[in-house]
């Protein structure tokens, strides 16, 4: 039966190939989009899991870039029991890098600057997030006036090495260190002394963007308890742990997932229509053939099985090709994106089974039509 079904499917090669191309496009497109979502989710997870401590931010600020808190919090927080590090940070957006907007290199090329205090940053484990990630040169030290630490990605893109000068928002810095975290978000920052960041940001004395805090005990329970105590210091601040950040971004990605779910439903309907049209045309053209088969003893269920086998095979082929096309396009997109789209094995298996499911669903009506043909009438069809 399988051999017969395959032969029938490829008897009209052009039509089958066109249907396969369309089904491959819809399945491949979906697998590509889901792999982008998975890749982005993976990248966000990697980023937040690197944050050991707590970020104290102005209440309601979505991002450190839009936050201002009083700098006296640094000492107040340091005084809380169990806190091992409390250091101020000033964050801003790099509008001009080497005399032009970083966005000229693409949407994912936005660059931020972070003003750090080397003295208090030393309290953080391993010298803090960026201090731990140094791959060349050194992190900021006390007394650095115009030093900058840049990511390996930025060093590559702007062709900068240790000792080179770099112009950030019109101010000149000397590159003293290069770091690499592997996160698409973290590797877009230029770290400069706090005083220089204050000058660039035009932030008044006595204020900073955020306070970075670490606890002596890095367990989730201790970090959360410390965050609650910090938040109680002032009604206009929030103390966010990596778990809070992760939850917030997951909610954003949840909206993306809802979009993909809607997209998948649309793809399913489209796929079923493609199979339905293909198989309906095939059944219409082969009325006489089904009449002959019924005359020589095929039952209704035998005919249904044949047509469903053909449509399921069409869907399975599209599933395999869709997986290949989706994986290839994800890989290609990965060359241009700051994160790698993730084509998980479960996604490949699911796409294959969705292909078969679409094939079977789209084949039900034509199979029913073929099975219902009267053999005598059908054999009269020219």
């Amino acid at each position, binding site marked *: 039966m399988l051999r*017969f079904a395959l032969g*029938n499917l490829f*008897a009209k090669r052009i039509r089958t190939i066109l249907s396969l191309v369309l089904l491959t496009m819809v399945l491949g497109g979906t697998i590509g989009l889901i792999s982008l979502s998975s890749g982005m989710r993976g990248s966000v997870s990697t980023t937040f899991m690197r944050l050991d401590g707590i970020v104290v931010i102005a209440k309601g600020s979505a991002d450190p870039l839009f936050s201002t808190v009083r700098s006296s919090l640094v000492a107040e927080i340091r005084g809380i029991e169990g806190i091992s590090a409390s250091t101020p940070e000033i964050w801003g957006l790099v509008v001009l890098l080497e005399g032009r907007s970083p966005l000229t290199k693409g949407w994912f090329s936005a660059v931020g600057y972070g003003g750090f205090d080397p003295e208090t940053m030393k309290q953080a484990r391993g010298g803090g997030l960026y201090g731990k990630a140094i791959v060349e040169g050194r992190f900021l030290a006390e007394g650095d006036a115009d030093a900058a630490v840049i990511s390996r990605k930025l060093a590559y893109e702007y062709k900068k090495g240790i000792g080179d000068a770099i112009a950030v928002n019109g101010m000149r810095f000397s590159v003293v260190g290069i770091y690499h975290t592997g996160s698409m978000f973290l590797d877009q920052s230029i770290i400069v002394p706090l005083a220089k960041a204050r000058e660039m940001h035009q932030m008044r004395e006595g204020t900073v963007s955020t306070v970075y805090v670490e606890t002596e005990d890095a367990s989730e329970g201790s970090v959360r308890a410390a965050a609650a105590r910090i938040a109680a210091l002032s009604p206009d601040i929030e103390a966010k742990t990596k778990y809070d950040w992760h939850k917030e971004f997951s909610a954003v990605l949840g909206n993306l997932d809802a979009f993909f779910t809607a997209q998948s439903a649309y793809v399913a309907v489209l796929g079923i229509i493609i199979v339905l049209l293909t198989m309906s045309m095939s059944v219409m053209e082969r009325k006489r053939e089904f009449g*002959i088969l019924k005359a020589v*003893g095929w*039952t*209704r269920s*035998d005919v249904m099985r044949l047509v469903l086998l053909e449509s399921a095979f069409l869907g399975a082929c599209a599933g395999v090709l869709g997986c290949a096309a989706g994986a290839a396009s994800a890989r290609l997109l990965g060359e241009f994106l700051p994160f790698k789209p993730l084509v998980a094995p479960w996604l490949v298996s699911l796409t294959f089974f969705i292909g078969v499911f679409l094939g079977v669903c789209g084949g039900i009506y034509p199979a029913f039509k073929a099975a219902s043909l009267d053999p005598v009438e059908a054999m009269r069809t020219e």
Partner: protein
Amino acid sequence: MNPESNQAGGANPMLSARGIEKTYKKGSNQVRSLRGVDLDVARGELLYIVGPSGSGKSTLLGILGALDRPTAGTLLLDGRDVFDRTDRELALLRRRKFGFVFQAFNLIPTLTAVGNVLSPLIPDGSARKAEAEARDLLARLGLAGRLDHKPFELSGGEQQRVALARALIGKPEILFADEPTGELDSEKGGEIIDMIRALNRDPGVTVLIVTHALQHIRSGDRVQRLKDGMFEKEA
């Protein structure tokens, strides 16, 4: 020709039709294609059903072969009502007990000669096992060199021999042939009829042939004449 009674099946006919009627709609008109046909066919018999175009020959053969249900009347096969069965049971009856040869060959265009012969056996999964038998059958019908040819690569006579092999692969008890020589020249038509006759002699397949090619009918053959949906009375 030797027209006989239409109830020549003896005391226990293999196939027995009584009062078969068939009415169908053609546009806004009702057409009575068969008007109460009675017929008995004995096991191992060779019966010709002849008559002019439109007399209802093919319709009758379709009903006798369980391809179509009558509007009225009964058909018994070995004493059991044929149309008492469900559509599925009728299909299985056709697969297991009947063989068909049609005027227009009715081969599956995507299958080879061997594939066509095996096509009735595909659903129950016995096609692969019967492949050697199908090749042997085709070889015996003179198609040893055409086994893997598709229908469009075969002549009319060759296609009809493939159709005959397809009808025989399930070892039928009754062979129904609807104008088997209609698309063939006289010589090729004669060859097909000879092959069918041979099957009737050995292994004794019961044969019903609908035709208007009277030249193939021989003395001693049982012939039933159909006219306007009824068998003509004996002269």
